[in-house]
């Protein structure tokens, strides 16, 4: 029995090995471990966008639950196609003056199964492309927290497509593209503190100014309709973030493990700190713990490939304090960034990018740089320049874009449509029958 079994298995093994050895000769540069990790990471980051829909969806009123979830789901579809058609080429294609990629990679022309050594020498260019696609998708979706419960769906789709094209793609090129000017300046952004979080968070503030407040803002209670849904979303975001940051090592190696560990640590420290803050003011809040976890993940994102686990605790805890008080501040102002994208992502990302300039050490990543704490104030200054540039560019372009769409399509739904809720008025559906 045993010998027959082992013979059977050896034949199968041989059959499996034959095509593999044949391919290995041609694609020797592709590392199977690296490729597997990046493909899994891409899938992990993909789930973050529908997760964001749940995170946001639970925080709005019942009548806008589907609409809010749909923002994220629609972006997953829209930007996936935009990225393949031209987004990837604009962001990562051959450089034009440090500012933008050219259109040589239109429709993924030339982006194939062979690696592109400029970005990742050991995985197929297609794997790097799809990993980056997931970042573009979630960044656009993040902004939706600013205008929930009142935006016209058509205006939302047009805004999102143009924002991805005019804001995300250029910024991604500056920071991550070969030849990008901020990359050449030496700005460190491991997984997207500037590109993802500052760009979306500051843009959220800009569009919140343009679209205006929800009816009843500051007068009537706007209750989160399903906090368990928020927690489920936060949990899936936390889970997906291991791919977001760990995958940004673009290899299955020690740096990926380091990024994984600091990611979890910062999220935990921030969730803990937010819980304590709410407890100090009233009661240990569940919504607060979920929010804190996400804010910690935001803050560690740019730093995740450069800092130690102890630094991650400081980065997460401080991020929670900054975002908590920023939310209190914002809610007293006359601006309705409804789900506090600016306080969470704009400021969380800003703190993370600056913290990278403080806590970065080449002991973690020799390809990075030392920060202020390790005797390199220059890096700190570079980080602040990058932060300032992204703040200004994202705010100005988004503000103008939102004004243009408001003047043409109209950003807001009619008052009656807003009163009845976007689920029924925009989608002719109800979340809960």
């Amino acid at each position: 029995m045993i010998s027959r079994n082992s013979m059977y298995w050896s034949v199968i093994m041989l059959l499996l090995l034959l095509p593999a050895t044949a391919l290995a000769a041609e694609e020797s540069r592709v590392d199977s471990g690296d490729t597997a990790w990046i493909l899994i990471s891409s899938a992990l980051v993909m789930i973050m966008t529908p997760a964001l829909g749940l995170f946001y969806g639970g925080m709005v009123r019942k009548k806008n639950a589907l609409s809010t979830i749909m923002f994220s789901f629609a972006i997953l579809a829209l930007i996936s196609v935009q990225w393949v058609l031209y987004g990837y080429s604009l962001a990562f294609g051959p450089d034009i003056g440090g500012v933008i990629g050219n259109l040589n990679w239109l429709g993924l022309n030339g982006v194939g199964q062979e690696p592109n050594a400029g970005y990742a020498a050991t995985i197929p260019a297609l794997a790097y492309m799809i990993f980056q696609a997931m970042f573009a998708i979630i960044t656009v979706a993040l902004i939706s927290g600013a205008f929930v419960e009142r935006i016209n769906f058509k205006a939302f789709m047009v805004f999102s497509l143009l924002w991805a094209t005019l804001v995300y793609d250029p910024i991604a090129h500056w920071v991550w593209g070969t030849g990008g000017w901020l990359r050449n300046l030496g700005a460190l952004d491991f997984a997207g503190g500037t590109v993802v979080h500052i760009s979306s968070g500051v843009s959220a503030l800009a569009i919140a100014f343009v679209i205006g407040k929800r009816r009843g803002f500051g007068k009537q209670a706007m209750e989160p309709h399903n906090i368990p849904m928020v927690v489920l979303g936060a949990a899936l975001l936390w889970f997906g973030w291991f791919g977001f940051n760990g995958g940004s090592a673009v290899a299955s190696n020690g740096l990926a493990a380091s990024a994984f560990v600091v990611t979890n640590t910062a999220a935990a420290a921030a969730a803990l700190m937010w819980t304590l803050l709410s407890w100090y003011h009233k009661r240990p809040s569940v919504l607060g713990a979920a929010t804190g976890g996400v804010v910690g993940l935001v803050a560690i994102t740019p730093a995740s490939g450069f800092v130690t686990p102890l630094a991650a605790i400081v980065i997460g805890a401080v991020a929670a304090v900054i975002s908590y008080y920023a939310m209190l501040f914002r809610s007293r102002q006359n601006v309705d960034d409804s789900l506090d994208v600016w306080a969470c992502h704009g400021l969380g990302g800003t703190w993370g990018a600056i913290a990278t300039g403080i806590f970065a050490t080449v002991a973690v990543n020799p390809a990075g740089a030392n920060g202020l704490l390790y005797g390199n104030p220059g890096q700190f200054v570079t980080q602040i320049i990058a932060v300032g540039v992204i703040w200004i560019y994202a705010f100005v372009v988004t503000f103008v874009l939102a004004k243009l769409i408001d003047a043409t399509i109209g950003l807001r739904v009619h008052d009656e449509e807003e009163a009845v809720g976007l689920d029924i008025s925009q989608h002719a559906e109800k979340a809960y029958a």
Partner: protein
Amino acid sequence: MKKIEAIIRPEDLDGVRVSLQEKGIVGMTVEEVQGRGRQKGVCLQWRAGEYCVEFLPKVRMDIIVDDKDVDIAIDAVIRAARTGKNGDGKIFIYPVEDIVRISTGERGKEAI
């Protein structure tokens, strides 16, 4: 015949049911409602800071009894639902003109 409409704390619902059953009153219709009285609303936490909800969850129950059982039913509800604090609720009593039991067509007291 009278309809006794009692608005009570949700957590007292089962106690009231048992209390009525001990007096031989088994039928009732129950609904979850929101309301407001001297207890006013409650302030809950948003992600940072708080917001106030001006209506609190209550249970409204409709009980139909014969005229002679009205005080018995009211006593039973009060015994199970009174804490002595704001928010215990209220009881309203209405006359009932007629009752029809759908399954048999019985009318009036027979149908209680």
